[in-house]
């Protein structure tokens, strides 16, 4: 028999509220447990004194009962209803006052909107930076074409990209891609000048050539860097199984060709046979 069971049920034992088998178990335990016996004595004394309570003489029970009946039958007074309603409200309802809660909710919404617009703005700024960065990694040959079309020197192009005259050998030593050799060009083709161009991250080589006394500028730059031509429309052409892009504006033609290691842009007054010759020369480097 557990000590705890007996202690818990001592009152029930005294009040004869237990089943006979439980009574027997408790009595068995009490024979061997002095502390439980003392406890039983204490509880017995407490029970004995509790029977001494006497109710006072209620003076006005009739008046009280009439009062209760009046409260129930007649419409409850405002105060009574209010008290009952107050008891029904939950703790959180009493703690959260509607006006401050509404104000906090509005502030949170405004804060959220502000945060969202800031994030959006930052995203646009980030995209703008990304675009600028990407453009700085490549060359905008549209600027060069603008100058040709306008019949003026390509000042804007030269200002944007650091330009330096170099020999063919110097250019070859300073570039990471195989430089075009132009060995297969017709005899009428003359390489007049080589210049090294530099932007934020790569070098391009500018070959100024004369073909039948017409100037053709050929740019060669490493593959994988962006190339832009402003707003000039680009068309996709196939010539002898070789795909290239072409821009035609007035007497000027732009040829854009991508090879494995490098990209070529040829700008000048070129006819179909010039283009075919240049493509042949370039692709056999």
């Amino acid at each position, binding site marked *: 028999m557990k000590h705890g069971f007996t*202690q*818990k*049920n*001592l*009152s*029930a034992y005294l*009040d004869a*509220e237990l089943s006979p088998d439980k009574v027997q178990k408790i009595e068995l335990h009490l024979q061997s447990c002095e502390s439980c016996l003392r*406890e039983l004595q*204490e*509880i*017995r*004394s*407490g*029970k*004995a*004194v*509790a*029977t*001494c*309570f*006497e*109710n*006072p003489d*209620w003076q006005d*029970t009739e008046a*009280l009962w009439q*009062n*209760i009946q009046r*409260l*129930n039958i007649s419409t*409850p007074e405002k105060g*009574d209803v209010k008290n*009952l309603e107050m*008891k029904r409200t939950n703790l959180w309802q009493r703690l959260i006052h509607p006006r401050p809660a509404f104000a906090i909710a509005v502030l949170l919404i405004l804060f959220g909107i502000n945060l969202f617009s800031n994030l959006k703005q930052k995203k646009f700024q980030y995209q703008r930076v990304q675009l600028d960065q990407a453009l700085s990694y490549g060359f905008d040959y549209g600027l060069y074409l603008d100058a040709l079309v306008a019949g003026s020197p390509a000042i804007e192009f030269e200002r944007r990209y650091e330009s330096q005259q170099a020999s063919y050998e110097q250019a070859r030593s300073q570039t990471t891609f195989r430089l075009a050799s132009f060995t297969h060009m017709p005899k009428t083709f003359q390489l007049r000048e080589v210049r090294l161009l530099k932007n934020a991250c790569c070098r391009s080589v500018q070959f100024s050539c004369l073909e039948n006394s017409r100037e053709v500028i050929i740019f060669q730059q490493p593959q994988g860097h962006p190339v832009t031509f402003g707003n000039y429309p680009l068309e996709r052409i196939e010539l002898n199984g070789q795909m290239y892009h072409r821009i035609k504006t007035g007497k000027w033609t732009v040829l854009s060709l991508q090879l494995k290691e490098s990209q070529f842009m040829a700008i000048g007054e070129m006819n179909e046979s010039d283009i075919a010759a240049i493509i042949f020369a370039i692709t056999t480097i």
Partner: protein
Amino acid sequence: MRVMSTAYRMCGNIQEAEDVTQDVFLKAFKEIKKFREAASLFTWLYRITINLCIDKERKRQRRQKYHENVDVDSERITIEEANSNENTRTLDQQMWQDEIQSILQKALSRIKPKFRTVLVLKDIEGLSYEEAAQAVGCSQGTISSRLNRGRKELKTLLVKMGMGEEYFQER
């Protein structure tokens, strides 16, 4: 009358007991739909009474930061003086009884509400364990263990107040 006497034992004064009784019936009339027929009506009324009394006590305690912080020693002197006084025996029997009842009620008021509740229901109101369990909303085993605590605390408090051994004898 049973509601009123329970309220009186729980609250400790007649005025509050009357207020609680009024509230109990008001609440009972309002919430009669919530009454389940499985429970008996009077245990349901006891339950409302006890809850309202405990609510009232909590509110009172919140209002006055100390709860009838009566000095037990001062009461001991009163009882001991009364016992030793030769005139005690000549005191009017009714006055003496009133004094004893007042001391008993004070001791009862100092017992924690959950122990006091079962003491009032079982020992004073004479409910069975089953009825008391229904009124309080707990098991009969809990009633028994709470009664243990309540009875022991009552005895300890009364001994501290100087109540004589004759009151602790079974009648």
